[in-house]
């Protein structure tokens, strides 16, 4: 009896439904943030050494970039289907995908940042007696920070969008609600979760921009 009517007059936001389902959105948002944070931190932990290696040893460069590029082209559905026999429907499966997808941006920015360090600064550091590791940690990486943070910003915003694909394996954060709204042709979860996801991306990007101002005050113009 009510069927077609509900489809036709489904409002963009059904406030009554929304008010009784707030915890659903809180949990989804929390999961979304957690999945994104692990992906970016894990991506950084991997891409810092990879980017440094690619910068220092030319032979590493093409393979490192090629692997991160090829990984980016693997469809998430195929990747998850391949991983499930080993890692199941877990955060690990999701993060292998998300961290892998973040590498393309992060590794490249670490490398570009290191390459932009002026040669005379390196000469000066050498002249002051810095050994390679100390020079990397105290001179090169701090100078590469603007580029690295710019990479983190891009990677964070794309990952916030990408997290939704992990709904395929029962995670997905806000993606779970977007999927539910889509398959039920129900606007409220679809619209609210999409708006939350966009808001999250904006807040994350602005916070990272703020962090950049604090950490690298000399690079105000980026």
């Amino acid at each position, binding site marked *: 009896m009510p069927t077609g009517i509900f489809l036709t007059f489904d409002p963009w936001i059904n406030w009554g439904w929304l008010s009784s389902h707030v915890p659903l959105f809180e949990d989804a948002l929390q999961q979304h943030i957690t999945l994104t944070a692990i992906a970016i931190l894990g991506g950084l932990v991997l891409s810092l050494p990879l980017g440094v290696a690619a910068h220092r040893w030319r032979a590493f460069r093409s393979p490192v970039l090629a692997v991160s590029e090829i990984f980016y082209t693997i469809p998430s559905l195929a990747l998850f289907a391949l991983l499930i026999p080993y890692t199941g*429907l877990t955060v690990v499966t999701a993060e292998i995908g998300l961290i892998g997808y973040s590498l393309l941006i992060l590794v490249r920015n670490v490398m570009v940042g290191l390459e932009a360090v002026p040669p005379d600064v390196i000469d000066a550091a050498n002249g002051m007696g810095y050994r390679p590791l100390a020079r990397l940690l105290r001179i090169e990486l701090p100078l590469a920070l603007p580029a690295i943070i710019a990479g983190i910003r891009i990677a964070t915003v794309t990952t916030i969008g990408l997290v939704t694909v992990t709904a395929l394996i029962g995670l997905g954060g806000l993606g779970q609600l977007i999927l539910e709204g889509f398959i039920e042709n129900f606007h409220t979860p679809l619209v609210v979760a999409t708006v939350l996801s966009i808001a999250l991306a904006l807040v994350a990007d602005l916070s990272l921009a703020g962090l950049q101002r604090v950490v690298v005050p000399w690079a105000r113009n980026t």
Partner: protein
Amino acid sequence: MIRNITSRWLVAILAAFLVVATACGGSTTPGTSKGTLTVGGFNFPESSILANIYGQALAHDGYTINYKLLLGPRPIIAAAIKAGSIDMYPGYAASELEYYNNSAGEATSDPAATTATLNTHLQPLGLVALTPAAAVDANAFAVPQATATEYSLTKLSDITPAIASQLVFGAGPECPTYKFCLPGLASVYGLHFKAVKTLDTDGPLTRAAFKNGSIQIGLVFTTDADLKGLGLVVLQDDKHMTAADNVVPVVRQAAASTEVTTVLNSIDGKLTTADLISMVDQVANQHLDAAAVATTWLQQHNYSS
């Protein structure tokens, strides 16, 4: 100065990492539970309802239940149960059989025989299909009311080859190779359509294609309560090509104890197609929660979970 700021920044990142890592830690609470079972479900409302019915009945019986719902297409759910990430999921006898036998075309319109054949394929995988319910979510083929009127169609055999050559057909990506979809329409009814569009299996893409007129015939589920509301007419399968897609729980053998089997079989003994239609309507169209709809059904059938 720079060193100070950098190290402070690193400490902040490490701290954030630790917080996140602890937040992700396990939170299992062992109690007087008979054991923990994870119930999976497909990414359509009916599957969430069925998963909740099975899960809540088992919870009522003393098991601790985790849910993994809205999982991607069948390859994901099959990989998940093989890997032990889920212990069971609500399957459909013929569709499961044709998935696990790689579309060998062994399914028939007999649910018991189809389930028995399914079990010969599940056995080596450490899985088992229990007793199928009377409830069927069969694939059916629908046309818009206007098309039905134009060609006076009420059953599939009303479509002559000449009519078929004017209709665009839409269904999910598996349809062209699935015995009970396009190959069946060709071999049983002799139908070859003007074009075939790859959409989804009775999902939003198919609905949209019907609405904007880009398809004139498409695959739908018999348990959809909103077909009439959408102005779609299901054509009767008068030559009985449709396979027995009765609801059947697929369970890991390790989880299929006598007690679990008894609970699930008693559910399947009571579940009817009419129940499915009404529950799917409540979730998909009236936007009630699948868990609440499942609870109501269980209460009506003497499980007060």
